[in-house]
């Protein structure tokens, strides 16, 4: 559902002033500091852009908890080029809305405003503002403005225990399906060109029984399937909120659900893709600071073992008997020998994606029941990478990504002929 963050009279006022070149959305609603700090950061980034490109004159900033200053006065950019910034506040999410839903609506608001203003580029920052700098905004927008890239995806500096769902599912799945190697296909920070923005706002391609597209899940696949130019940009370290272990299943449901729905939408495209290729990357990778200690995996192993016993009937509706047998054997191994093979994990993800498509059981139940398996993967990864350095971790993740590509024929055959095998 798109919300009008910028009212019609304000849109007309901006258009009378000559339109806008950029829209920047700052979606983090929990930032500390003064209300106008986010807007000030955007102004600093835009001033640098203005100086470099000499073509950016007017920008619209949409903030969560930002200040509302519709009558923003023109400011001088650092190169003397006048820079006008209009800033508005995004509509706050309702009390009953989940945080994920709130972010999706905020994305739609930013894209909607950018589409109406027919801007040349749009940047969205959804990460926690504690780690965001003006350079982030510059690096997300500059390739779209100057180098004719349509989608600028982020590349973060990560510790070995960060971005685990991304490393284990989202990134390698996107790579195997769409042939594009992105570290973070689901963002959450993106830069988009005006041309690509109009495509994301276009009519729904092959609507799936009323399911609304989630912007974060659909941006990268849409760029891949539409033949748009995609690049990555190094942004540095992100600030991550602490993991809420009690709501991990909700997180998995809200993240994996839209990814599987998008997979269903783009099925005609990804079934033809073989292999993958890297995309151009800009900026300089930073080395992660030292990791903060080892991980206690006992609870995760207990969850995995409990899931193997308690959820075998549910998993039996989704996974083939060979996979169930392997999981049962795995649950009996002592912690020092607990290793989940890549091909096993890949088949589990593919089978769950297929089960999601076929609605073998309620989709919410299906997504939540993957929680013990995911915890088992984390435990296996943490035990294997306990004393590994950054290079070894990247090599390990690369192996997992290759396993997704090698296992793709399994997915394609089951996707095309689901009745040939039915657990």
């Amino acid at each position, binding site marked *: 559902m798109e919300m009008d963050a910028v009212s019609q009279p304000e849109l007309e006022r901006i258009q009378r002033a000559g339109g806008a070149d950029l829209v920047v959305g700052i979606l983090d609603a929990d930032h500390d500091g003064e209300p106008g700090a986010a807007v000030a950061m955007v102004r600093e980034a835009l001033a640098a852009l203005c100086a470099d490109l000499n073509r950016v004159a007017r920008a619209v900033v949409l903030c969560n908890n930002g200040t509302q200053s519709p009558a923003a006065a023109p400011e001088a950019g650092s190169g003397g080029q006048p820079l006008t910034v209009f800033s508005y506040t995004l509509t706050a999410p309702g009390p009953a809305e989940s945080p994920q839903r709130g972010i999706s609506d905020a994305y739609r608001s930013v894209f909607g405003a950018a589409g109406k203003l027919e801007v040349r580029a749009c940047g969205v920052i959804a990460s926690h503002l504690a780690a965001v700098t003006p350079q982030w905004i510059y690096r997300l927008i500059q390739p779209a403005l100057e180098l004719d890239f349509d989608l600028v995806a982020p590349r973060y500096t*990560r*510790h070995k*225990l*960060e*971005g*685990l*769902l*991304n490393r284990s599912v*989202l990134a390698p799945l996107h790579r195997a399906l769409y042939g594009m190697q992105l570290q973070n296909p*689901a963002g*959450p920070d993106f830069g988009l060109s005006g041309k690509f923005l109009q495509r994301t706002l276009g009519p729904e391609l092959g609507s799936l029984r009323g399911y609304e597209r989630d912007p974060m899940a659909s941006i990268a696949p849409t760029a891949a399937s539409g033949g748009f130019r995609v690049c990555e940009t190094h942004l540095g370290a*992100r600030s*991550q909120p*602490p*993991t809420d*272990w*009690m709501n*991990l*299943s909700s*997180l998995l449901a809200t*993240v994996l659900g839209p990814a599987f729905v998008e997979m269903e939408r783009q099925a005609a495209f990804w079934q033809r893709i073989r292999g993958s290729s890297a995309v151009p990357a800009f900026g300089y990778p930073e080395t992660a600071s030292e*990791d*903060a*200690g080892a*991980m*206690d995996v006992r*609870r995760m192993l*207990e*969850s995995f073992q*409990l*899931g193997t016993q*308690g*959820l075998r009937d*549910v998993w039996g*509706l989704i996974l083939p008997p060979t996979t169930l047998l392997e999981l049962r054997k795995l649950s009996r191994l002592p912690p020092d020998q607990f290793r989940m093979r890549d091909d096993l994990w890949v088949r589990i993800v593919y089978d769950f994606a297929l089960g999601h498509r076929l609605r*073998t*059981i*309620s989709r919410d*139940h299906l997504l*939540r*029941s993957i*929680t*013990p398996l995911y915890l088992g993967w*984390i435990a296996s990864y943490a035990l294997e990478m306990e004393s590994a350095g950054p290079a070894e971790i990247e090599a390990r993740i690369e192996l997992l990504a290759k396993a997704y590509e090698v296992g793709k024929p399994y997915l394609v055959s089951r996707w095309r002929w689901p009745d040939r095998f*039915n657990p």
Partner: protein
Amino acid sequence: MWDQVGQALNQSMNRMLSEMASLLPGAVALIAALLVSILVAWVLAAIVRRSLTKIDFDRRSAQWGFPALAEWAPAKSPTRLATRAIAWTVVLIGFLIGISAFDVALTSQFVIRLFAYLPNVLAAVVVLAAGSIVARFLARSVLIGAVNMNLQYARLLSAGVKWLVTVLAVAMALEHLSIGGGIIRLAFGILFGGIVLALALAVGLGSKELVSRSLDREVGKTSSLNMREPVGHL
């Protein structure tokens, strides 16, 4: 005297024959109704069989929460079970219509009361089916939620919820069928209350230490995890 005996026997025979003759039209109507209902049942069964085969009813019935249908269906085919049930229902209705043609007060009243009872039977079947689906859905929700919360008695909780809903549905179905009356209400109350009490005792008293350990583990691990494990998922 023998003439009188013979006359009495003749009169009885005549009465009997005339009674039988008066039943003939009803018998013909009954046979005709049976033949028509058999024909209608055959046509209806063919239509239903084709429709159910098209939607793959045999496979979907297991997914919808009725795996036992395949076990007690002829040739393990729920489609065949449904088809035969519909066919025999139509034949039975035809038989009852044919019976009512005898124009005997007792049979007519019986048929009328039977037809008046049919909506109750249908409502009971719907309540049982809905109850089965709801029970299965809720049981699975509780099972997955409890496993994700690391509760060791997840299967017990799930079974308890399933039986609670099933007992409720059966009691409601029997209420619709007007079977048992007060005895069923009393039995339902005792059974339902017993299940709830058993679950409460299992969770509250019998597994006190287990729950306490589970909760301590959850609280301790949540706080300690936040301090010691810099895990991010996205």
